[in-house]
């Protein structure tokens, strides 16, 4: 899934015949990995070259992906995969460096905040060492700055600054010729990610106006307000980019609408802290069957298999009691409860047995 096919078609066909797998090059991974993990073919390997502590709960990983990685454009994301306790976990993060760093030095950075209860971010913060090789996918996402240059406003919150860092570095390096303003909201001063880098950018790139606003340093919270927007010259002519927690994004959108800025001029990137533990949320939820392009709601302890069948789908199944795994398929997001054990799953991409999995909150399934 994170692999990039590079061999010719004939070789690939032959490999499939000989090794019974769709990614035949990965057949030799178990032999190559102990020699040099950068030779892995199953996914694009990326070595952790350096780990920088940005704030008490945010780290930047400087990665050196294998040269077969296709690179990225500023503002894009990647999936990474890591093995935590024997389990492969996939997560998406924004690339925080400029593509120029990749082109010149073969490096890219991810800036990752520790999420309370998050299995992967806590592992990255506590256990990941420099020199480790992790898996990386191809970059995706279209949170991209306008070409040719037009005035831009970024509104970022917390770790939502990461794709914006990539954008600003690229704009500074290419001397993007239009006014650029960043409104960066953090809770307290200590939460500012990459402060020096931002200040250095503002110093050397004259088009950039930087406002760092703390929301919780005073007794009454100081959120984004209309005056913030009013102080930006030519606000109505700007392309606006939002990236941050849902509360900030909703508020910004509402204030921008009030100023008559159209939705076509507002761009946002997905950034929502996934719920690591859905806690006491009741069973049931919105289930999205992505390949069938179908969404249905469910209540109570209906299993995914029952929900799919009630929705008119006919996924493969066998024993309907959790033994035979005929119905196992990929969950791409959301939490499910195992009906046999009562255990909650993780919220990332993983395999689930439809016949014994009950959704808890919104869930996406690859059927």
């Amino acid at each position, binding site marked *: *899934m994170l692999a990039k096919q590079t061999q010719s078609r004939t070789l690939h066909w*032959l490999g499939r*015949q*000989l090794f*019974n*797998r769709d*990614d035949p090059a*990965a*057949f*030799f991974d*178990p*032999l190559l990995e*102990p020699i040099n993990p950068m030779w892995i073919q*199953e996914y694009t390997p990326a070595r952790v070259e350096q780990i920088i502590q940005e704030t008490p709960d945010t780290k930047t990983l400087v990665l050196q992906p294998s040269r077969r990685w296709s690179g990225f454009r500023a503002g894009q994301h990647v999936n990474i995969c890591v*093995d935590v*306790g*024997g*389990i*492969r*976990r*996939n997560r998406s993060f924004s690339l925080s460096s400029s593509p120029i760093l990749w082109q010149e030095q073969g490096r890219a950075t991810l800036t990752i905040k520790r999420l309370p209860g998050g299995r992967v971010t806590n592992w990255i913060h506590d256990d990941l060492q420099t020199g480790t090789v992790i898996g990386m996918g191809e970059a995706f996402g279209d949170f991209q700055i306008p070409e040719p240059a037009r005035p831009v406003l970024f509104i970022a919150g917390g770790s939502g600054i990461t794709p914006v860092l990539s954008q600003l570095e690229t704009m500074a390096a290419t001397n993007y010729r239009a006014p650029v303003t960043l409104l960066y909201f953090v809770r307290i001063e200590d939460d500012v990610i990459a402060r020096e880098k931002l200040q250095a950018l503002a110093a050397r790139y004259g088009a950039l106006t930087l406002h760092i606003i703390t929301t919780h340093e005073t007794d009454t919270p100081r959120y984004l307000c209309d005056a913030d927007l009013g102080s930006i010259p030519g606000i109505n002519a700007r392309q606006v980019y939002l990236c941050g927690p849902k509360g900030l994004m909703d508020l910004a959108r509402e204030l921008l609408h009030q100023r008559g800025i159209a939705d076509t001029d507002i761009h946002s990137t997905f950034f929502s802290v996934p719920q690591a533990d859905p806690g006491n949320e009741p069973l049931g939820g919105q289930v999205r069957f992505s390949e069938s392009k179908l969404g249905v709601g469910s209540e109570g302890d209906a299993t995914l298999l029952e929900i799919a069948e009630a929705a008119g789908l006919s996924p493969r199944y*066998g*024993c309907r*009691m959790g*033994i*035979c*795994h*005929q119905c*196992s*398929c990929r969950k791409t997001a959301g939490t499910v409860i195992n009906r046999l*054990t009562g*255990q909650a799953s993780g919220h990332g*991409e*993983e*395999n689930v*047995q439809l016949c014994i999995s009950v959704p808890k909150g919104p869930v996406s399934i690859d059927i």
Partner: protein
Amino acid sequence: MKHMTEAQLSELEQDLNVIREEVIADLGERDAQHIRRMVRLHRMLEVGGRVMMPLGFIPPVFVAATATLGAAKILENMEIGHNVMHGQYDWMNDPSLHSQTYEWDTVCTGDSWRRTHNYEHHTYTNIIGKDRDYGYAVLRLSNDEPWKPWHALQFINYVLLSVFFQWGVGLHELETEKLRRREISWREKLPFLKEFARKGGRQAFKDYVFFPLVTFPVAPIVLAGNVGANLIRNLWSSTVIFCGHFTRDAETFSEEECEGESKGHWYLRQLTGSSNFTGGRWLHILSGHLSYQVEHHVFPDLPAHRYPEISGKVQAVCQKHGIHYNTGSFARQYGTVLKRILRHSLPERLGGGAATTA
């Protein structure tokens, strides 16, 4: 079958669930390391066997190469393929170890195996008429099946099935007995036959065409070695599998007694319908831990290398409920399998009747 009340069955279910949950709560690094080590060993054996094979004109190298490739196929089929396809490692979330997409080094397609083995055999274990693995529709192994004259020569069929085991398993889903009885038509089996031809062709191409051709000057030697490796795997896997359900004390069941059964009853059927054999660590690994067939049938999706660890607990549960735990040395268990095949070659009144369970 031993009679147990629903209350007793429910207690049995709970006792076994406790064992299962303990293992599930403990799954992690150790299990991942085990299967990855097995996969790495398989790659070494396969690459080693293939590289040595062209040097097979030196007799000891021929023996070593054939044995190495045979061992690679056994390890891949038994400890890796069979167990991965049961979903034993699905929790690892590793796409190359995922039950529903894994494809193994044998003629039977993964999809066909998942239907006939994981679903049919593991759900309807040893129910005469529903579990088509019971005798593979070729052998009469219980007096519940009426005797026909051709059963007299079934030992020959058994030997043929073992020699060509991968092709027999590959064709299992064709359901020839139903085609003979005209319950299903050839047309219905066309999609299956296509898949069978694709995978069977792929396997034959690899071992009998491609590798002999790329080593052209020594093609006959490589061909012979590859045939030998497949034969070793066929004989071994057939033998292991026969020891799992066809030993003397392994029980069979009727459709009536299993209708609408509880999970506890299903557990009881798995415990009494399966049989183990004892041996050293490598015998267990090369049998894919099917030497712990009882534990495997009770917990088909727990990583198989855990079976030796929980065997004591399963035995204790059996003892508590007065259920016979069927185990013995490999030689003894296999001896009772051969006796069962021979005894049921004859009609019940001519010796078949002496069967202890049937």
